[in-house]
């Protein structure tokens, strides 16, 4: 169920990114019984499904975040090194402050905002899965 819910939620993603999200979520699904054991919580399919859905969101956020960080940091370091360059990959402009960089900033901010709205940002960002299972078992 949860993989299906996740798959439906990310149906607009390009195939390459969608596979990154789904394969990460599937690996979490396989590891779920062990995570429940480590959390000291009896295994529940319903909670495991929610956990797998959260794992997919975590991967989605990490894709956006890491791409933003790479472009932003490389741009800043290059500015410090020489200054005044634009960075081009094929036809794409990857310069800091360029369209792609700006789009990454917007998408990242909006995704963080969306996850915060549902009070699951911490789940998608940093909380260990063992702790997420405990919180979900306690009715979150």
């Amino acid at each position, binding site marked *: 169920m949860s993989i299906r819910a996740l798959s439906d939620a990310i*149906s*607009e993603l390009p195939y390459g990114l969608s596979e990154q999200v789904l394969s990460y979520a599937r690996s979490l699904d396989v590891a779920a019984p062990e995570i429940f054991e480590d959390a000291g919580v009896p295994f529940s399919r319903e909670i495991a499904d929610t956990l797998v859905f959260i794992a997919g969101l975590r991967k989605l956020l990490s894709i956006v975040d*890491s*791409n933003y960080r790479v472009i932003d940091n490389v741009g800043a370091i290059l500015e410090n090194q020489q200054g005044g360059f634009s960075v*081009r990959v094929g036809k794409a402009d990857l310069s800091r402050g360029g369209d792609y960089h700006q789009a990454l900033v917007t998408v990242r901010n909006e995704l963080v905002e969306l996850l915060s709205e549902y009070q699951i940002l911490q789940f998608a960002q940093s909380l260990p899965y063992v702790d997420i299972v405990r919180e979900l078992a306690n009715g979150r």
Partner: protein
Amino acid sequence: MDVSAVQKSIKQFLKKHKHTFLAINSNQSKALELAVTIGVSEHYRSKGYAIHVVNPKKSPKIFVVKTSTRGHPWNFTHLKFERDGVVYEGHMNLMVESAHDEGRYCVDFGLTKVGCVPDKATKKAWVAAKNCDLVTFAEVKKLVVYPMLLAQFLGIVHEIKPCFIHGKNPMGFVREDHLFPVLASLGNFSGNSSKIVEGYKSRNIRILVAENFDIRLARVRGKQQSNPFV
């Protein structure tokens, strides 16, 4: 947690930003290759090398990233690293000869002796750098570091610079503060892969695994550290 409400919102969000996600899909690997190039240059800067960015003659104000095996090297940016009169060059997606046979490989970043990769059009087609001209290299993956990835990278090192697996370091390698072959990754160590890397020391395998590379770059940018490989 209301999964179906989140599901609906995520779907709307992804629809709204469809073009950006298409761009991420297309730029992800390229951006990473650029990142490892910049990361390596920060290592050399931290060791006292001056870095010169050499852009193609026809676009001197544009840092042109080479992201595939195709294209002439003189149409792309390369870097020069200079310290005490010694100069090396850094090239992206560099074709290089095997250490063993007639094989040729493309490394994401290659550090070479100066002048062995043409910086202007040649009459005879240029194919690959000679193995003896390659000093070290770096590969980057958008993956977690898992055991088979490490095994694959060791295989690459074995084909290109086997001295770092069994043999001595090239003369002056440590004195000139070169990096051992680098595997940079966006992910962290998974499974028991950190144990495998710990074991390399006792096996005298000299490679450098830089997990969480995006976070390492952020620390360099924030001046919390000067070298992303430390």
